[in-house]
């Protein structure tokens, strides 16, 4: 597999590490145990296009949101995580 890092360009799989489904959002402080349980443990485990967190560990160390088809491994989009490129915030 090859992932087009939005900063580095196309790189081989070995430079990246995988976290998982990017859809679950960490509940805000004060959330219930049920909500946090859902976030930590339950997965849609999608067969098809799925938004995922990948880390360019062996490259620029950006966390990425990769949309990838779990049936074909085809990647349709790669975006930086919200906190990457924060230097441009407000610019």
């Amino acid at each position, binding site marked *: *597999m090859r992932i087009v890092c939005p900063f580095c360009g196309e790189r*081989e*799989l*070995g430079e990246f*590490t*995988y*976290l*998982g*489904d990017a859809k679950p959002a960490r509940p805000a402080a004060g959330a219930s145990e049920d909500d946090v*349980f859902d976030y*930590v*443990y*339950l*997965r*849609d*485990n*999608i*067969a098809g296009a*799925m938004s*995922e967190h990948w880390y360019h560990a062996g490259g620029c160390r950006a966390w990425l949101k990769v949309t*990838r088809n*779990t*049936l*074909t*491994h085809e990647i349709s989009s790669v975006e930086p995580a919200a906190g990457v490129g924060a230097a441009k915030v407000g610019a």
Partner: protein
Amino acid sequence: MKYSIFSLARAAFSGHKTWQRTWRDASPKDHYDVVIIGGGGHGLATAWFLAGEYGIRNVAVLEKGWIGSGNAGRNTTIIRSNYGLPGNTGFYELSMKLWERMEQDLNYNTMVSQRGVINLYHSDAQRDAYARRGNTMRINGIDAALLDLSAVKKMMPFLNFDNARFPVQGGLLQRRGGTARHDAVVWGYAHAASALGVDIIQNCEVSGFVRDANGKVTGVETSRGKISAGKVGMAVAGSSSRVAAMAGLRLPIESHVLQAFVSEAIKPLIPNVMTFGAGHFYVSQSDKGGLVFGGDIDGYNSYAQRGNMSVMEDVCEGGMALMPMIGRVRLLRQWGGIMDMSMDGSPIIDKTPVDGLYLNAGWCYGGFKATPGSGLVFAHLLARDELHKEAARFRLDRFRRGAVIDEKGVGAQPNLH
């Protein structure tokens, strides 16, 4: 016809024209007491135990393709009960004991070969972890031996003891562990279950659940029509989330691809099953002569049933690091299976929140060795509506309660288990 050397010899006179189908080719009936989704080892074993142990013979096993076409036919055939945590220990030993009598139970040679499984260690910390695990096994009546370096050298003189990056220091040996012929396990259970009246229905894909007004599951919709059922059991590891989703359930499971590899057949080289402790590599040699080996999962969610090259390299690096004598042995085939990777690395066998629907899932890459045990405890659950005592910790709500069974200690991160 009972299988034996005598029946074989008799059949030889007729040019083997007298053999019947190994299992009946059944068409679906309107109703079964129990419908099991998934014609893999677990589903077929469950049906056999239901019919033979619990007297429930009006049972169907539905398989979307051909039986054994999922992980039952794609694994590295290892059997062992060398687990360290309560819940796993007793269950896998139950399974091991069933392996030890399988051929006689089924009248089918599944080639259970107790050639020994050794987990090598390369550091004091690893030795201590294995000591903890081995003592757990011994306390639970399971055989285990902690070997030092000289014992390992004697048993496997071909390992790299001279210039290894992470020298072997010893190993945890379970002599009763070993291998079994994976396809034969499927066929053996099909053969025996069919003989007891179980309908094995191939090319029958489940497309939905039939629910009554209270939401109870009362049957399944399939590619071969609607089938009503008293109870429905799922044994579809790899596809558990997809099937559960038809009933509106979300599971603590991700699907990941695990690759396996086999080399060309060679004369006997490796006597036992070995696990490298400093890299991702485990190996045994099949009776046919191929080195059957594997390593870690590819690491990302996948339903593609095929792996990437980097993992193949990683596995072969481990193999060469451990025993550089395999350098000129050629890798013949590479394949991938889809694992139900659960959030703690251990299986789930439980009723679901949906009445009438029962779950057997989350086997990670340990499903094959569990086959007979899984069949028994799942049959018990389906027959009695209660958890078998050796599977009492495999509950679905353990994640919510925090009572996880996390052998690796990596938490809710399936690709690390």
